[in-house]
């Protein structure tokens, strides 16, 4: 547990604190979910040394997740897919004046889940990393294929289009100079592109800006405002008692589901909600402000967020778009996530794990007292919020290189994102593909070099073969009508 020592310095605690505050502040803003929040705040971490930047990133991550829950509960606008479930009962609780209780339960449940999740990581990461040592290029390639396909299963909407978006992301990831041959690909003679496309303009353009534009298209009168009636800011003891078992159930559900590549936290929160509803003595309370409907999914959501780091840190596989961002951030810091990190830089790995727990703790400590402030913030009319959001977005992109050309890219991707939104195409899978693009190509190339051009190598190696079989099963599941119906039902709710 030297990680706690490394991460627990006063300086790092300070960074975690700042990260949490900023993450919550921006995450709370309507329309800015965790992905744009992390993207906006990422450049702030560039100047720090790797461990401190990871600590701060962890704070930002949890702050953003909590901010997203806050928005879901108060304004009924989920910041990301996994918050949708929180909206259902959480917002109802807010309308009954019990917003404080909902928010508090959400934070406490998340903290509890975070603790368990951290323990989970401690237990499972080393064995998993040991397995990963056995991996070679074909195995990594198949793993990425599996990860991408599984991510699609849990995307909303059309699976085929989501696969298409992943492929587009992969292709965009290849823009730039090819390391192996020195040839420039798709650069159109623009020198800025020689290093490839920066992911920040893509993420901010397609997620943040598009969200703003989308909200602006709705006339002001129709936008929902919060009824900030607060009968009580704190949950009653009876609330906590009711919430306890759902928290525990949610945590275990989330911890296990979070490891699965592809939208673990979405699946976790939906599953937790369904479980709670099925076990409840009075299921009709759900949808009208049942506290279990907040405690369960939020705990599941948060523990899944923790454990979704496991594939990233041990295998180098980002299981969803947020992890892809984290991976991008780490790579900028010079860390290549994967089994190598655990052995070559254990201080970094365990420091990161420790910082995740610290981030969780920070969250509860800061945000519970500050609930009132966040509510005041959200009740500001949107016409004040969105210029601020826009300003933060552009600052975030600009400050990476202090280069005005980046803004052109951002604008371009905003247009692209807008078009996609109009056509019901999900941008999140594209981010996943984008981050993995160069890696997949590299592994494919190495595999084929090893096999001298024989594609059978992917089936000959046992690990790779297993992964591909799993992929086939997942694909079959997507196609099978029975599974599809369950999926659609889950999303209809």
């Amino acid at each position, binding site marked *: 547990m030297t990680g706690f020592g490394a991460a627990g310095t006063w300086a790092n605690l300070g960074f975690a604190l700042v990260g949490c505050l900023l993450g919550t502040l921006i995450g709370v803003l309507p329309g800015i979910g965790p992905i744009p929040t992390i993207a906006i705040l990422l450049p702030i971490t560039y100047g720090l040394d790797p461990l401190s930047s990871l600590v701060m990133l962890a704070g930002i991550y949890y702050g953003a997740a909590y901010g997203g829950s806050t928005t879901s509960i108060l304004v009924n606008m989920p910041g990301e897919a996994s918050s949708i479930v929180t909206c259902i009962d959480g917002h109802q609780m807010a309308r009954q004046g019990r917003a404080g209780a909902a928010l508090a339960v959400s934070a406490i449940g998340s903290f509890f889940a975070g603790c368990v999740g951290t323990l989970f990581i401690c237990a499972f990461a080393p064995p998993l990393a040991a397995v990963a040592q056995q991996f070679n290029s074909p195995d990594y390639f198949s793993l990425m294929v599996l990860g991408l396909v599984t991510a699609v299963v849990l995307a909303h909407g059309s699976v085929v289009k989501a696969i298409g978006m992943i492929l587009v992301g992969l292709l965009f990831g290849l823009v730039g100079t090819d390391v192996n041959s020195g040839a420039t690909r798709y650069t159109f003679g623009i020198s800025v592109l020689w290093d490839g496309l920066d992911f920040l303009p893509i993420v901010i353009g397609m997620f943040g800006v598009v969200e703003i534009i989308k909200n602006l298209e709705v006339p002001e009168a129709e936008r929902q405002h919060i009824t900030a009636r607060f009968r009580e800011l704190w949950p009653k003891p009876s609330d906590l008692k009711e919430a306890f078992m759902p928290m525990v159930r949610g945590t275990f559900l989330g911890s296990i589901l979070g490891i699965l590549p592809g939208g673990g936290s979405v699946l976790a929160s939906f599953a937790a909600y369904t479980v709670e509803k099925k076990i409840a003595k009075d299921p009709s309370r759900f949808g009208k402000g049942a506290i279990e409907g907040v405690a369960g999914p939020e705990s599941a959501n948060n523990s899944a967020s923790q454990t979704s780091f496991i594939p990233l840190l041990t295998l180098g596989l980002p299981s969803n778009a947020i992890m892809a961002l984290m991976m991008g951030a780490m790579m900028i810091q010079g860390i290549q996530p994967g089994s190598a990190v655990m052995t070559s830089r254990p201080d970094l790995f365990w420091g990161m794990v420790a910082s995740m727990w610290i981030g969780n703790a920070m969250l509860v400590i800061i945000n519970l007292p500050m609930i009132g402030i966040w509510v005041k913030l959200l009740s500001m009319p949107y016409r004040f919020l969105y*210029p601020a959001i826009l300003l933060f977005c552009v600052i975030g992109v600009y400050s990476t290189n202090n280069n*005005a050309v980046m803004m052109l890219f951002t604008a371009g991707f905003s247009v692209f994102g807008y078009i996609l939104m109009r056509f019901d195409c999900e941008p999140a899978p594209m981010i996943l593909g984008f981050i993995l693009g160069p890696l997949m190509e590299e592994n494919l190339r190495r595999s084929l070099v090893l096999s001298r051009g024989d594609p059978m190598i992917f089936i000959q190696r046992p690990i790779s073969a297993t992964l591909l079989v799993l992929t086939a099963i997942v694909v079959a599941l997507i196609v099978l009508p029975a599974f599809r119906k369950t999926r659609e039902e889950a999303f209809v709710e």
Partner: protein
Amino acid sequence: MLGVKSPRDFGSALVFLFIGFSGIYFGSDLTYGTAGRMGPGYFPFILSVLIIAIGVGVGIRSLMVEGPPVEAPKLRPLFFVLMSIIIFGYGVTYIGLALTGILLTFLAAFARRDVNLVETAIFAVLLSVGTVLVFVYALGQPLPAWWGDY
């Protein structure tokens, strides 16, 4: 008669086809190599072909399965937000963050229909100064604050 039943899927198909064909066209000067020795054009080509396949698939589906219509884009928010973003970049370089922040707030405000100039002006100044204090001074971002660096 072929009618487009799902305009959104049809639009998506067009996007995929456009990207796929562009991928092949703009990558045509790259060497493909062989499977055993992949050239820089190999993977992009495979991806582009797959994207085109998806485009065809989605396109066919759009002709057969009903889907909701595409909502007409409202140009005003789109235009002003894009303008703000593009001008921001040049603004910060030449006249610094504070002034550009004010400029951006104004431009963004015009994305709405009901703009109160006085209210926007006050807000713009407050927001810009606040942002400068937070980002440049508190967080130490290397941004030109009160005038440009150029």
